[in-house]
C-alpha cells in the first residue's frame, strides 16, 4: 500500500496580506519528522520521502501527499466546514421564536414600547460577501473567534472576525513538470475543505531534492462603511516546497522492518 504523508500549511493571513508574501509568516509541517524532514514550523519545508525500494530490495510503490492549508486566525479545521451555516441557522431560529413571542404578546399588550423592547432583542447574523476569482460572489455569515455569529448591528472589527481559511488552488513547479509528482484535487466525504482536498502521488524511484509550488488563495477582509456589507477580496499567493526523495528503504512502523505481512502477535 502507498505510504501517506500529510503536509500542513498554517498561514498568518493578516501578516501575509500586509507583506504581500507568504515568506516569514507561513508555518509548514509534515508527519515524516522521524524520517528526516527539515524546516518544520518554517516556510522552507523539505519533506523526507523514503522508498525507492523495500527492505527486501524490491521496487517500492508510489507515495501519496495530502495537502491541508489553514490560517492561524481561522476557526479550527476540525469544525465542520459549513459551521457558519449551522450557527447562522441557530440564530435565525432564535429570531423566529422571538418574533413569534412578539406576535403573541402584541395581541395582549397595549404598550407599543413592549413590542419595541422585544424587537430590540432580535439578532441577525452579519453577512459578508466572498468574491471569487471567477467574479462570482458567495454569501458568508461572519463568525468571531469563538464560533459565534457576529451581530449585524455591531461594526465588525477585523481582528475579532475569524479569518477565512486559505484555499489551495493548485500545485505546479519542477516536480510536476518532470512528472515526479502527479497532483489532483479529490472529492472526500469529509467536509473539511468543503469536501475537496489536494493530493499528489510521488514517483519514489527518483532520488533527488525536487521543488514544487503551491498556489494559495487568501482573502482580505474589507469593511467599507460605503458598502452594504463587508466583503472578502481574493489575493493569490504562492509558496515553494521541496521533496527530498531518498533511496532509504520504506519502513514498517509496527515492526521496524520492511513492509508486507505483519508478524502474528499474541492474542489479546
Amino acid at each position, binding site marked *: 500500500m502507498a505510504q501517506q504523508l500529510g503536509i*500542513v500549511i498554517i498561514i498568518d493571513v493578516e*501578516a501575509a496580506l500586509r507583506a504581500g508574501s507568504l515568506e516569514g509568516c507561513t*508555518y509548514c509541517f509534515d508527519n515524516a*519528522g522521524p524520517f528526516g524532514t527539515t524546516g518544520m514550523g518554517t516556510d522552507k519545508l523539505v519533506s523526507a520521502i523514503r522508498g525507492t525500494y523495500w527492505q527486501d530490495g524490491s521496487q517500492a510503490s508510489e507515495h501519496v501527499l495530502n495537502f491541508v492549508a489553514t490560517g492561524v486566525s481561522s476557526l479550527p479545521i476540525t469544525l465542520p466546514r459549513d459551521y457558519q451555516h*449551522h450557527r447562522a441557522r441557530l440564530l435565525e431560529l432564535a429570531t423566529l421564536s422571538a418574533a413569534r413571542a412578539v406576535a403573541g404578546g402584541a395581541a395582549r399588550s397595549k404598550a407599543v414600547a413592549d413590542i419595541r423592547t422585544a424587537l430590540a432583542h432580535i439578532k441577525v447574523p452579519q453577512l459578508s460577501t466572498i468574491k471569487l476569482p471567477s467574479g462570482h460572489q458567495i454569501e458568508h455569515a461572519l463568525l468571531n473567534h469563538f464560533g459565534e455569529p457576529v451581530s449585524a448591528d455591531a461594526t465588525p472589527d477585523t481582528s475579532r472576525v475569524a479569518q477565512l481559511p486559505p484555499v489551495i488552488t493548485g500545485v505546479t513547479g519542477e516536480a510536476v513538470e518532470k512528472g515526479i509528482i502527479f497532483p489532483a484535487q479529490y472529492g472526500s466525504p469529509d467536509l473539511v475543505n468543503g469536501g475537496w482536498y489536494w493530493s499528489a502521488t510521488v514517483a519514489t524511484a527518483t532520488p533527488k531534492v525536487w521543488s514544487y509550488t503551491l498556489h494559495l488563495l487568501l482573502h482580505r477582509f474589507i469593511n467599507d462603511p460605503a458598502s452594504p456589507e463587508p466583503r472578502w477580496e481574493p489575493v493569490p499567493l504562492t509558496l515553494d516546497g521541496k521533496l527530498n526523495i531518498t533511496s532509504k528503504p520504506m519502513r514498517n512502523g509496527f515492526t521496524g522492518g520492511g513492509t508486507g505481512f505483519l508478524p502474528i502477535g499474541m492474542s489479546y
Partner: protein
Amino acid sequence: MSANQLRIVVVVDVVGAVAAETLDGSVWLMDSNKSGGSTNEGTRQLQTTVRKGDQLIWTTMSLECEAFAAIDAIEIDPAYCEVTRGVYEGTDISYWLGKVKKDPGDAVVPYNVHFKLGSRPGAVSMSGPNLPAITGGRT
C-alpha cells in the same frame, strides 16, 4: 492601546508523540501576533507579547486529521493569566481562553499545555524548561 484577541495554534504530531512516548519534538506553536512583537513563531518556545486585558485563544491541531488531539489544560501563573475552557457550540471541539490580568512587563511567564492524544486515557504535557511563554510589550 485597546485589548486584543490573539489566536494561538498548538500543532501536535500525535502519532510521533505516541510512538516516542514524549511530546519533545512533536509540538509547535504559532500566534496571530507576529506583527505585535511575538517571537519564536513555529517552535515550541513561542513567546507571545501581550498587554493587560488581552484575550488569548488557544486551539490545537493534529498533523494527521485522523488522530485525536485536544488541550486538556493550560498551566500558567493565574496572577498573570486566567484560563477557562470553552466549546464551539454544537460540537465537542474546544478552545482555551486566557484573560491577561496583569501586564508581564519584562517578565517572561512560561506556560505548559496538557493534551489528550489519540485513545490514551491520561493527559500528557511538555517537559521543561523549553516552554512557551507570554511576556509584555505588545505593540
